[in-house]
């Protein structure tokens, strides 16, 4: 009897937790006209996973539909859906740069009200499928959580190395610009002197030809 109660309670709790969002997301408010875009700068070979759902404001009308479009930094269309209330897209980046996801309300929706869209956008380590890792390596519970944390630490390390290379690139550009400023300023003085010498020489020759000097 006691065991049945505990299993019942456990099942109830499991059912309840399954309704909890596994990963939080942001909500956007789409105006009746106009597009709302979010972007992120992603490097090469990173998994990008996203889900979007239209949340209806009131239950009396039907759920308004939206359109979504995702473009790569070079303009390639990665995902384009019209007239949907939910959708998802996943891709591995082949170009480094700004990935843009745009949403707009479909024109034929009646009522000029704002539409709220729930967007869940995950890149890199947060897009990793831990369930398949758990199944493949047969780990569970605390060990799985620690494995996730280990993944996060590795991602932090990689990010740090990436920031270091970016900083060194920028330092090179800064130092080049610094030396260029010095050289160009001196050259500008040289150009000034050269131009005035040329002027004097040309005018002297001209006046001598005109026999004014």
């Amino acid at each position, binding site marked *: 009897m006691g*065991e049945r109660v*505990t*299993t019942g309670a*456990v099942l109830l*709790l*499991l059912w309840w*937790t399954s309704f*909890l*969002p*596994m*990963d*939080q*997301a*942001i*909500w*956007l408010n789409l105006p009746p006209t106009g597009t*709302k*875009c*979010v*972007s*992120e700068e992603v490097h090469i070979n990173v998994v990008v996973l996203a889900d979007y759902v239209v949340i209806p404001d009131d239950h009396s009308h039907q759920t308004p539909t939206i359109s979504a479009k995702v473009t790569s930094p070079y303009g390639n269309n990665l995902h384009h859906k019209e007239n949907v209330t939910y959708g998802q897209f996943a891709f591995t980046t082949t170009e480094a740069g700004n990935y843009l996801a745009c949403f707009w309300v479909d024109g034929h929706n009646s009522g000029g009200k704002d539409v709220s869209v729930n967007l869940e*956008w*995950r*890149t*890199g380590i*947060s897009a990793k499928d831990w369930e398949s890792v758990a199944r493949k390596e047969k780990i*569970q*519970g*605390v060990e*799985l*959580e*620690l494995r*996730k*944390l280990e993944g*996060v*630490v590795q*991602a*932090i390390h990689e*990010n*740090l190395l*990436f920031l270091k290379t*970016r*900083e060194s690139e*920028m330092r090179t*550009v*800064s130092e*080049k*610009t610094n030396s*260029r400023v010095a050289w*160009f300023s001196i*050259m*500008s003085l040289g*150009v000034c002197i050269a*131009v005035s010498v040329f*002027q004097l020489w*040309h*005018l002297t020759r*001209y006046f001598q030809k*005109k026999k*004014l000097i």
Partner: protein
Amino acid sequence: METRKRQGFAKFFLCLGLLCSLVRNLSALSITVNDVECVYEYVLYEGDTVSGNFVVVDHDIFWSSDHPGIDFTVTSPAGNTIHTLKGTSGDKFEFKAPRSGMHKFCFHNPYSTPETVSFYIHVGHIPNEHDLAKDEHLDPINVKIAELREALESVTAEQKYLKARDARHRYTNESTRKRVIFYTLGEYILLAIASGLQVVYIRRLFSKTVGYNRV
């Protein structure tokens, strides 16, 4: 024996489910702010720490050395302002959510030029003694793991902030580099043209002389 195994399984699944519910993550997104742009985030538990950062990534750097900045406001589900930052070009923020519900994070751009803001919002929950008492299957180790996860999250958030600041610095650097090259070349060419015009003008002044001292 079998019932004990079943209970063990149920315990494992419950722990997994509860632990999974504690994982929250979000990538650093950028949004273009023309006037006011708002982003909403749902806070599940009262007392959760909401942390994050935002950086204004300039597209066009013009003549003033200081960025005018944008305003940032956080509104609770009840409608009162929890956190405000005015006229800043990027900052970190952290506060304890006074109640659960949908919180509004707004960026206000007081100027006419659109600005791109890269932001990151994270809601962290650490199970406390109340949660531990409510569910006897929740181990104290899960609290420690949650604390560790939150600490790693704060490191990741700091990295995202640094990356956004680095992107902004990069724009400034590129703009400086282009300005140095093009403005100096333009200066040389204009100097040559000005002196050429001077010579042409002086020649014209002297070209129509009839006498010696006509000019």
